[in-house]
């Protein structure tokens, strides 16, 4: 039976609900050999900052049970190089691009948004107020409702584009932050970013990451992410994008059922670069089997 894959995220209509998570999909072009990236709902770029960042010293990664810790430190080419070198190719390929933004001050967040105003081919801005791996900025904005609202309002003011706020799992009450962002004008909320973790080598007594702590991602965090997405979706009226441990169509459908309008596939792309496509194809099969449009699954869990 027919299944319309399109979903609406506030002012935006996406081809389908499968996006890729920032920092796990490079600038999108790295995946071109594997599948047609333009067939996805969209991609979230690696976090962009005003100036290029070299990132944290290695080791930056370590594996944990059903997941991984990372402390990349928001290494990125900077917004100018992104606009010059990456964006034209993404545009040419018809890829829906969500620009993920990182800054250490409210002003810089606004400046980033303004910098992108003149660029074509960006569907939305995803504001990362939840990075656990940098000393300043990031998570500090994400655990305080007033700060979160201030950033949201500043980016909204600086841009005509839809503004998505990416929430931290480390706020004691994530729904509170979500409501603050909604009130400040956010067009959608993304949850969750990684959860800070630590691993130590029992032989050398050294932390496994040079940054000491890192962000936990992968299937290990899925139950926590799903609970938080449910809490956020119940608390707000704006759309929610679900993230955290999604590796299969069933995983993605769970997030839709608890209230997410779209999902992002993250670390699963390391295990299998075609993971986002496979999640999408599985969701389409699920919709066809049940004769349902994907958007009609949103919030249907019997909770």
């Amino acid at each position: 039976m027919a299944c319309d894959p399109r979903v609406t995220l506030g002012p935006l209509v996406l081809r389908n609900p499968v996006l890729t998570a920032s920092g796990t999909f490079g600038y999108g072009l790295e995946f071109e050999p594997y599948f047609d990236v333009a067939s996805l709902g969209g991609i979230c770029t690696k976090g962009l900052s005003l100036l290029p960042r070299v990132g944290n010293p290695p080791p930056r990664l370590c594996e944990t049970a059903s997941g991984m810790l990372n402390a990349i430190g928001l290494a990125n080419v900077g917004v100018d190089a992104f606009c010059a070198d990456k964006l034209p190719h993404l545009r040419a390929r018809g890829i829906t691009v969500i620009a993920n933004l990182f800054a250490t001050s409210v002003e810089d967040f606004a400046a980033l948004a303004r910098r992108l105003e003149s660029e074509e081919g960006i569907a939305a801005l995803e504001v990362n107020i939840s990075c656990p791996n940098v000393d300043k900025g990031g998570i500090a904005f994400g655990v305080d409702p007033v700060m979160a609202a201030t950033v949201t309002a500043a980016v909204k003011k600086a841009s005509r584009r839809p503004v998505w706020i990416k929430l931290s799992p480390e706020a004691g009450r994530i729904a509170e932050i979500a409501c603050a962002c909604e009130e400040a004008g956010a067009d959608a909320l993304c949850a969750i970013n990684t959860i800070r973790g630590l691993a130590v080598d029992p032989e050398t007594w050294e932390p496994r990451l040079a940054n000491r702590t890192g962000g936990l991602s992968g299937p290990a965090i899925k139950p926590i992410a799903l609970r938080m997405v449910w809490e956020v979706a119940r608390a707000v009226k704006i759309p929610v994008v679900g993230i955290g441990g999604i590796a299969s169509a069933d995983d993605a459908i769970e997030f839709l059922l608890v209230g997410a309008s779209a999902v992002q596939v993250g670390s699963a792309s390391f295990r299998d670069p075609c993971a986002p496509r496979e999640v999408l194809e599985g969701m389409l099969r699920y919709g066809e089997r049940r004769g349902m449009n994907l958007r009609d699954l949103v919030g249907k869990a019997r909770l």
Partner: protein
Amino acid sequence: MEPSRAPDCHGGPLARQLVAPLLRREAVGSTHHVLTFELDRPLEAEPGQFAMVRGAAWGSSPFLPRPMSLLEAGKTPSILVKVVGEGTRRLATASPGELFTFHAPLGRGWSPCPADRTPVLVAGGVGVCPLLFLARSLASLGREPIALYGGRTACELPLDGALGRVAELRIATEDGSSGETGLVTRLLEQVLRDTNGRVKAFVCGPRRMMAAVAGMCRDAGALCEVSLEAVMGCGFGACLGCAVPRAGGGYLYACSQGPCVDGFAVDWGR
């Protein structure tokens, strides 16, 4: 869709991820295993490139695929595995027929050896893999590589026989159980002296060994290329996990800018 190439992607064959059965597994000594996979069509790869390998039935843990240097390309590519943790333990106990995701060829292989330089391969332990592939390729081109191979003890020199068939092999072990007693750098010292530094060293082994070799080559006016070691997430430039300090600041990415890079481009001190 015909796969297109990312704009800043290096040349060489495009990578594919495919599911391939293990064809056979041969123990090499007590801690090393050669695993040979059976592909549906031949793998084109250059010496020094690697594969990301993962058991198709591993589920969610171990989570990430494991980077493994290619020992050879073709329809039945192989890798040499040394057991150091859970992932390599599972590889080393796999049975023929077991399915693996095999993602290759990845990274930049070795760059050519100038005609006026003798190729000197410097290997430590499992670092032998990309160098054996290189030695075979050089031999097939009529070049005559010298191979210097070191380890703590004779058991840590897997595939020494195979290497000896395609290169002039010299061995050093710390306990003297094979070849000269001492570090592989002792062997290199002599080669650099004999050749007056007119060599290109191709190096793969523990970080400390590569750092030492790079230093010696610089002093002797020799060329030096190393195969970088890093924990990898994706293997193809998507995660930025595999950073290695770059000379002059910033980082090199082992999977996309390497693993084979100019030994002098690495900051061995940081």
